[in-house]
């Protein structure tokens, strides 16, 4: 019998969502537990993750209630470390290909997502980053995508897709709602620009990934919108 997996997550967190996507795509049995980060339970910091962050994955040990974690389970943090762990636990899942060169390409895509999508996009949404940097980042990652491919690398869903999907979901939300601390209209403008011929490959890839059941199951757009409305009030 395989070891227990419990994922401590938050429904707003793109980093938690990355892990949920990988688990869902692999059909791995796991327990998901939403941690109220704004009102952190004491047992979370004392027994699961002293830094108090999500995602945190526990693996092994006795099968217990998520609110009563066992000291016997291994605790893992950092979303990309957890993604690699899942790929190791499920070597035939395709989360990472078997071929060393393809594995390196998947990892390069993951790294590129962090540098060129994650950082510039959330900086922009928080009103601290530039619109141009978002576009440059998207263009860079677009350059890594294969022509006409359904997935970021190769012909199977990998941790590369899991890594970028949450940001793509939030990008779609922002471009449709214009929610964010950037200047009014810049979110909508971004959406328009991404529909142009320069970004066809990227937009097609994003649409396909977001159509997947795993994307739909793990992204609650309503609560993201509610949160963004309160978090990104523009001060005129």
């Amino acid at each position, binding site marked *: 019998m395989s070891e227990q997996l419990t994922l401590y997550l938050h429904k707003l967190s793109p980093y938690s969502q990355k892990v949920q996507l990988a688990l869902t795509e692999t059909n791995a049995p796991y327990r998901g537990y939403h941690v109220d980060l704004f009102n952190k339970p004491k047992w979370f910091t004392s027994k699961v993750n002293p830094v108090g962050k999500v995602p945190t994955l526990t693996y092994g040990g006795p099968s217990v209630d998520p609110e009563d974690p066992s000291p016997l389970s291994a605790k893992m943090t950092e979303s990309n*470390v957890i993604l690699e762990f899942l790929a190791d636990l499920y070597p035939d899942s395709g989360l990472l290909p078997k071929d060393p060169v393809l594995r390196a390409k998947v990892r390069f895509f993951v790294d590129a997502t962090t540098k060129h999508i994650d950082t510039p996009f959330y900086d922009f949404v928080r009103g601290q980053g530039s619109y141009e940097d978002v576009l440059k980042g998207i263009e860079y990652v677009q350059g890594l995508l294969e022509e006409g491919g359904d997935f970021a690398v190769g012909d199977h869903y990998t941790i590369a897709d899991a890594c970028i999907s949450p940001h793509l979901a939030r990008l779609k939300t922002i471009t449709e709602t214009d929610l964010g601390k950037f200047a009014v209209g810049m979110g909508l403008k971004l959406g328009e620009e991404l529909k142009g011929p320069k970004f066809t490959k990227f937009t097609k890839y994003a649409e396909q990934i977001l159509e997947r059941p795993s994307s739909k199951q793990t992204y609650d757009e309503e609560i993201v919108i509610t949160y963004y409305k309160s978090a990104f009030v523009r001060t005129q």
Partner: protein
Amino acid sequence: MPQEQITLYTAKVCPYAQRTEIALAEVGAPFKRYEIDLANKPEWYAPKVNPASKVPAIAYGGPDVPPENPSPESTKLAESLILVEFIGDLYPSSNILPADPVLRAKARFFIELVSTKFSPNYMKFASGNPEVTHTTLLAGVDAIQGILPDGAKYAVSDQYTIADIALAPFWARFNVLVQKGIGAYKDEERKSFLKALEDPKYAKFNGYVQRLLARQSFKSTFHEVRPLFWR
């Protein structure tokens, strides 16, 4: 054992590049080593090997050509940590990647810690960035010591892994700087840092980094070259 050729584009001074050289030495892989002069990069390097124009980079497979004339048929790969994992994947029986997934995750977490709490500070300190004081440096040491297992030789266990490979080149260069007083930082910061490290509470860390420096694959790939920017 892969039959494909490996060409490594590297530079003696670069700690990122040394990571890949250590990994190749650990697994015993045959490879061609090509030194890139970082102050004077060849014109063909960015267009034919690494568009980011950085080292390390590997050209893998394709025909056996001289490094200065890379073939479009070889696969070009970059980013030091990705290359170290790649080398581990090419030589799975080398053990630089632990067999157990939980230990692998620990190794990768250690690497994350090095990347966030230690290696960025190396360059900042050396170039005299006032943000990085001896306190910042000690926080990095504390973070690393905090996750070193008790009674183990290396970062994750008694096995030398990608975690150790990630840190060794950075610690080594940093150590040279502070021991020899090279760099643009204030001398009081250097002295405070060295003094603090003498405290017995850092025995675990000090023992660990000494073992890193004593490792054969480290020694054979470390060139105590004075980096260009500190002339």
